[in-house]
């Protein structure tokens, strides 16, 4: 594989792993508290809906002219990437509370337990929560796979990377039957945010008609520069507020 293909695979893998952890936390919480059967039906229906959305959007996306695709996708990746980097910087400096999977798991578990009794048959609560969680997080996975894949003309590689990420997270979640609280989520989000932002800068500028010196090799400079800038902001904010502990933004 070329360096760009590795960049594509790693970016998709990490982004999809983060989304999968969030979806799995919801599914485990509602499944262990309510009804596994209804939860699995919710997951299954969400996966069918995601497959339909992917089948509808995929061909339309790949049929667009490359420059239009790059400027639209580059812009969206840049917006998503900058949001992730922003949140990761704020969490790393204590200006925003950490995304605590254990706390989310417990909150979901308590609200599931308090949602009335579970009968013998179908449990609409388990179905709805599992469906919504998997559909919303899955939409982000689909978006990442289609946009990254279409831009690099390699949707299959992006889909394989996403599949491995989802399988790895599900296997780990089933093995421990608990939220994956030990996954260093903020570090992952930091890395993914930097990658999304870097690809967004590169593709956005290319799609808008600019030409990068060194073509795709420019990514090897863009990624470290974005990372260095983000880390510089973390260091400067920490120096300015040295004693600050976690405070909700």
């Amino acid at each position, binding site marked *: 594989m070329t360096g760009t293909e590795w960049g594509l695979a790693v970016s998709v893998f990490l982004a999809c792993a983060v989304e999968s952890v969030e979806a799995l936390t919801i599914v485990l919480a509602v499944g262990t508290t309510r009804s596994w059967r209804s939860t699995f039906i919710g997951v299954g229906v969400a996966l069918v809906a995601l497959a339909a959305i992917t089948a509808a959007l995929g061909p339309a996306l790949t049929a667009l002219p490359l420059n239009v695709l790059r400027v639209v996708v580059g812009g969206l990746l840049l917006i998503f990437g900058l*949001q992730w980097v922003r949140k990761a910087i*704020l969490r790393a400096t204590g200006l925003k509370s950490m995304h605590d999977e254990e706390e989310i798991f417990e909150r979901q578990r308590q609200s599931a337990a308090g949602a009335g009794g579970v009968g013998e048959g179908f449990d609409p609560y388990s179905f709805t929560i599992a469906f919504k969680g998997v559909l919303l997080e899955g939409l982000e996975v689909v978006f990442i796979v289609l946009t990254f894949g279409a831009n690099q003309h390699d949707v299959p590689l992006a889909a394989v990377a996403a599949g491995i990420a989802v399988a790895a997270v599900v296997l780990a979640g089933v093995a421990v039957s608990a939220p994956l609280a030990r996954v260093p989520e903020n570090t992952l989000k930091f890395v993914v945010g930097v990658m999304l932002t870097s690809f967004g800068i590169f593709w*956005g500028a290319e*799609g808008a*008609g600019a030409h990068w010196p060194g073509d795709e090799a420019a990514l090897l400079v863009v990624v470290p520069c974005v990372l260095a800038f983000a880390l510089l*902001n973390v260091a400067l*904010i920490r120096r300015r*507020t040295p004693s600050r502990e976690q405070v909700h*933004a």
Partner: protein
Amino acid sequence: MNRVRAFGAFLYDFVIGDDWRIAAGVVVALIVTAVAGAWWILPAFVAVMLGVSVWSVAGSDGS
């Protein structure tokens, strides 16, 4: 109507997120890049937008 509103809220949160200035800045940066045709415009905008966004939170925190 509530479902339409809920979908709108989801879409806004999905695309725009916590700081609308980032989304607006990206659109402006892409337009300026298309007009000027220079590769360095987008990274420069990104540096300014990210800096302004995180430092406005750091500044408003009062420390």
